[in-house]
C-alpha cells in the first residue's frame, strides 16, 4: 500500500511523525512560567504585604527604600523611606527584581525552554515550526542574550543578601524592645530559598566558564580546577535547580504574604 504525502522538504506548522506526547514538556514549561510571570507581576506591583516580623519576601530583598505605608519597612530598608517623587508604580520590588528576572530570562536553560514553549522555535525536537524566517541569537534582538554574565554578577550578590535575610529571620521580637533567637517555619522556608537559588546560581554556565572555562591547563590551577568541578557538578542538574528555585522563591513570597495578611500563626521554636 502506498501513501503519497508531503515531500521531505515541504512542511506544515507543527508537522511531525513523532508518536510520543512531545507537546507535554513545552506545555508544562508554558504553564509553569506563565503562572510564575502572572504571580510575580501581581506581587511586584502590589507593593505591600512583603514583611512580617523578621521575614522579608525575597521579591522585595534588598529593600532599598521602605514605603511609609508599610509598617516596620523602614527598619529593613537600606536607604530609608521611599522618596516622595518616586511614581506610585515604582514599588521596592520594581527597583531590584529586574536583576534576578534578567538572570533567568538570559539563562541558557530557560532560553532553550521558552524558545520552545512560547515561540515554538521549534515547538519540540523534530517538530516543524510555524514560521520560515529565523535569526536565532545571531543578530538583534536576541544577540542581547549575551549579557547573561552581567546578570550573573548581580545575582551572586543577591544570593548573599538573601542569606543575610535568613540570618535576620532568626531574631524575633521578644516583646520588651529587644530580640530573641528562634527558628520559625518562615526561617526554614527562606533558608530553603537560599539553598535552591544558590544551587541554581552557582551552577550557571557563565560562572562555569568564568571560574575555569578559559584555563587551558586546569592541572596548573588547583583552586580554579576545584571551583570548575564544583560548578560543573551543579551545572549537570541546572534544569532541576532552575525549576526548584523558581517554585521555591514564589512559595517563599507567598508564605510571607500569607502570614502578613491572614493572621496565620507562624510556627516558631525558641
Amino acid at each position, binding site marked *: *500500500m*502506498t*501513501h*503519497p*504525502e508531503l*515531500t*521531505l*522538504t515541504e*512542511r506544515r506548522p507543527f508537522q*511531525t*511523525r*513523532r*508518536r*510520543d506526547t512531545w507537546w507535554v514538556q513545552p506545555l508544562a514549561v508554558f504553564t509553569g512560567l506563565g503562572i510564575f510571570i502572572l504571580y510575580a507581576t501581581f506581587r511586584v506591583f502590589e507593593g505591600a504585604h512583603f514583611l512580617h516580623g523578621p521575614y522579608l519576601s525575597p521579591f522585595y530583598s534588598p529593600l532599598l527604600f521602605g514605603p511609609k505605608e508599610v509598617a516596620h519597612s523602614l527598619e529593613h530598608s537600606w536607604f530609608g523611606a521611599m522618596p516622595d517623587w518616586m511614581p506610585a508604580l515604582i514599588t521596592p520590588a520594581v527597583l531590584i527584581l529586574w536583576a534576578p528576572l534578567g538572570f533567568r530570562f538570559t539563562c*541558557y*536553560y530557560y*532560553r*532553550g525552554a521558552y*524558545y*520552545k514553549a512560547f515561540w515554538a*522555535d*521549534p515547538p519540540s*525536537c*523534530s517538530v*516543524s*515550526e510555524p514560521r*520560515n*524566517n*529565523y*535569526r*536565532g*541569537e*545571531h*543578530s538583534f534582538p*536576541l*544577540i542581547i542574550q*549575551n549579557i547573561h*554574565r552581567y546578570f550573573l554578577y548581580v545575582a551572586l550578590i543577591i544570593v548573599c543578601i538573601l542569606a543575610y535575610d535568613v540570618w535576620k529571620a532568626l531574631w524575633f521580637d521578644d516583646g520588651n524592645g529587644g530580640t530573641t533567637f528562634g527558628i520559625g517555619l518562615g526561617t526554614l522556608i527562606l533558608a530553603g530559598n537560599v539553598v535552591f537559588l544558590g544551587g541554581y546560581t552557582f551552577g550557571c*554556565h*557563565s560562572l*562555569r*566558564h568564568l571560574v575555569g*572555562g*578559559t584555563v*587551558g*591547563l*586546569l*592541572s596548573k590551577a588547583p583552586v580554579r*580546577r576545584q571551583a570548575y568541578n564544583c560548578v560543573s557538578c551543579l*551545572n*549537570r542538574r*541546572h534544569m532541576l535547580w532552575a525549576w526548584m528555585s523558581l517554585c521555591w522563591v514564589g512559595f517563599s513570597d507567598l508564605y510571607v504574604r500569607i502570614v502578613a495578611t491572614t493572621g496565620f500563626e507562624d510556627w516558631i521554636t525558641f
Partner: protein
Amino acid sequence: MAKATFRIWRGDANAAQFVDYETEVAEGMVVLDAIHRIQADQANDMAVRWNCKAGKCGSCSAEVNGNPKLMCMARLNDLPLDEPVTVEPMRAFPLIKDLVTDVSWNFKVKEKMKPFAPRPPDAEDGTWRMEQEDIDHIQEFRKCIECFLCQDVCHVLREHDLHEEFIGPRFFVYAASLEMHPIDTENRLEELKDSDGIGYCNITKCCTKVCPEHITITDNAIIPLKERVVDEFYDPIKKLFRVFS
C-alpha cells in the same frame, strides 16, 4: 512469529512516497534487521546505508517514528508495533534514494575548519607532555561517530536550511575538541562567530538528546564556545581589560 508493518520512505528527490511492508519480527530485532528482511524478501531495490550494526559506524542514521535514530540501535520492543513503524531518511540532507541521503556537505564543512595546530613538541623525540586531567574534559568529544543525527535534528539546518551560514552541532563539537585541547594554539573564535554561525544555535538541546554516544553537546561544547565568543566580541569589560593588559 509476530508480524509488524513498516511504513518506509521510497523514491528519490524527484518523486517519493511512503510504502507499507508487512514482515515477521522476533524478539531482539532492531529496525535495521526488519529493513534488511524487507529488502531481502519484498523490496530488493530498496537503498539503505549501513555497515557495523553495532552503533559505532554512524551509517544507518534515519528517522524512526519521527525520531532521529541509528536503525541498528532502535530496538523493536521499544516501539509500538500495533501500528505501522515509519522509517524515513534524515531530513536535513538531500535525498539520494529511499533511506539514503547525501551527507557530503558535512565533509566540506570540516575541510574549511582550521585544523589542529599543536605547539612545538615538548621533547626532543617530537612528543608532547600533557596531564590527564587537562585532556579529560575533551575526551567525550572524541566519541563522536559522525552519524549526523545531531545535524539532522537541529532546526537551524532541518527547518531553515541555513547550511551556508551555520556548521551545526557536530562541528561545534569538533571545534570544541580543538579549541579546548591543551596543546592547540589556533584561535577559531572569529570563524565561530561569523562563518560558522554559532549565534544561530538557540540551545534547544535536541542535538544532545539524539546523540547515540551521549555526548553532552550543548552544555559541554556549544555553550562553552558561545561563552568564549562573548569573551572575545561582546563583553565590554573584557575588551577594556585587553586594551590595558
